[in-house]
């Protein structure tokens, strides 16, 4: 055993070290909680595997492993995770419901913050002038045709009240509706999905 270890060549020692590294990376992928770190770890796992293929004289497989495992798959993960994590709110009320004293400290914002923290979403509030000008009758179309998840407007029937408009197909909004019980002047409207051409 000792003789075997002493007679190892440099390449063999590297190969063993890389194999142990693979085990560590695999455990780290399972243990880690942060998605960004996990993606980097997956990419590095592929890189280490590719170098092991090179050591074992399989350059063809190594090229495929590098191209697929450490370029395309991490990029696809990055795209999908960054798209799924954000919750976009269109602020059409434009008063201190969300932004008060030029800071995001209005009661509406605190409500949405609680909601988004519950689901670990990244909340993204916008008051895009193009979309903000759309008349309230077309809010349903706005929800369907853009990537806006929720619209905040003033309540026309109720002085000082606010309306939250969302799609009924978004199950996350059920939680938001139960949270609204504490707020007297905020109501929720959920639009059912229409069929195409209706």
């Amino acid at each position, binding site marked *: 055993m000792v003789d075997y270890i002493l007679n190892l060549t440099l390449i063999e020692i590297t190969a063993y070290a890389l194999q142990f590294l693979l085990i560590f990376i695999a455990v780290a992928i399972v243990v880690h909680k942060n998605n960004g770190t996990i993606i980097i770890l997956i990419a590095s796992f592929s890189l280490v595997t590719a170098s092991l293929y090179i050591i074992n004289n399989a350059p063809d497989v190594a090229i495929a492993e590098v191209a697929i495992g450490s370029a395309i798959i991490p990029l696809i993960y990055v795209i999908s995770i960054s*798209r799924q994590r954000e919750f976009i709110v269109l602020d059409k009320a434009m008063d201190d419901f969300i932004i008060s004293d030029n800071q995001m400290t209005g009661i509406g914002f605190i409500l949405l913050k609680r909601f988004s923290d519950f689901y670990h979403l990244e909340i993204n509030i916008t008051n*895009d002038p193009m979309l903000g000008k759309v008349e309230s009758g077309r809010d349903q179309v706005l929800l369907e045709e853009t990537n806006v998840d929720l619209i905040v407007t003033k309540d026309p029937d109720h002085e000082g009240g606010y309306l939250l408009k969302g799609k009924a197909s978004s199950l996350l909004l059920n939680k938001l509706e139960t949270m609204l019980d504490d707020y007297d002047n905020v109501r929720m409207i959920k639009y059912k999905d229409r069929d195409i051409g209706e």
Partner: protein
Amino acid sequence: MSRRLFLIAMLGVLFVVFTLSMIELESLYNNYGMRYFLNEGFDDTGSRNLVTAILLDYRLFDSLFEAGILLIAVSGVIWISKHDVEEKNAQFMLDKYKTPDLFVTFSRLVYPLMLAFGFYVIINGHVSPGGGFQGGAIVATAILILYYIDGNKETNIGLIVTIEKIIYLLIILLASLSFFTRGEFFTNFFVPSANPDLKAIYLVLLNVFIGFKVALGLWTIFTAFLKEGR
């Protein structure tokens, strides 16, 4: 806790069995195949890279179905992420998630190099490591970088998939040409006594077709992913 300990013990047993069977296998190793391919491979197929020789000549039947698997996977991804309603993107979103300028500039520099390297790997598949599949994946990565440079890029998925299907049919036709010259399907269409350098033409053609097919397939997959979240 006991369940976990049991699992760990099971894993240990599996590990021991695996290492034992590895030692057993060593008595089965022989190098007849290796010697045959080393001696005859170049004259038979015209390929200096013996992996390509096996993939595109000796075992072409298997490779055709491997290429077909990607086609089926692409169809599956498209079917799952099908959107009947044309979705528009709110312009303002791209400002917040705009790619950093440094990354854009760097991508513009790297993009042509990646594309050239991909084509190099495809065309030299019969001489150096690589081939249609690897080169196609590199070309697809290069195209993916384009989406980081310009986030509003529009792609016609239907057209890409149609081209991919046509190229797959061309691959099968090219592989079947040998029936008229050699009398058997799925091998080189030059006669066995032909010059190895001449036989390489067939390998280059097949590699180019497979490379384009793989690049288009992967392009479709990540275009579907890009559209999905928006």
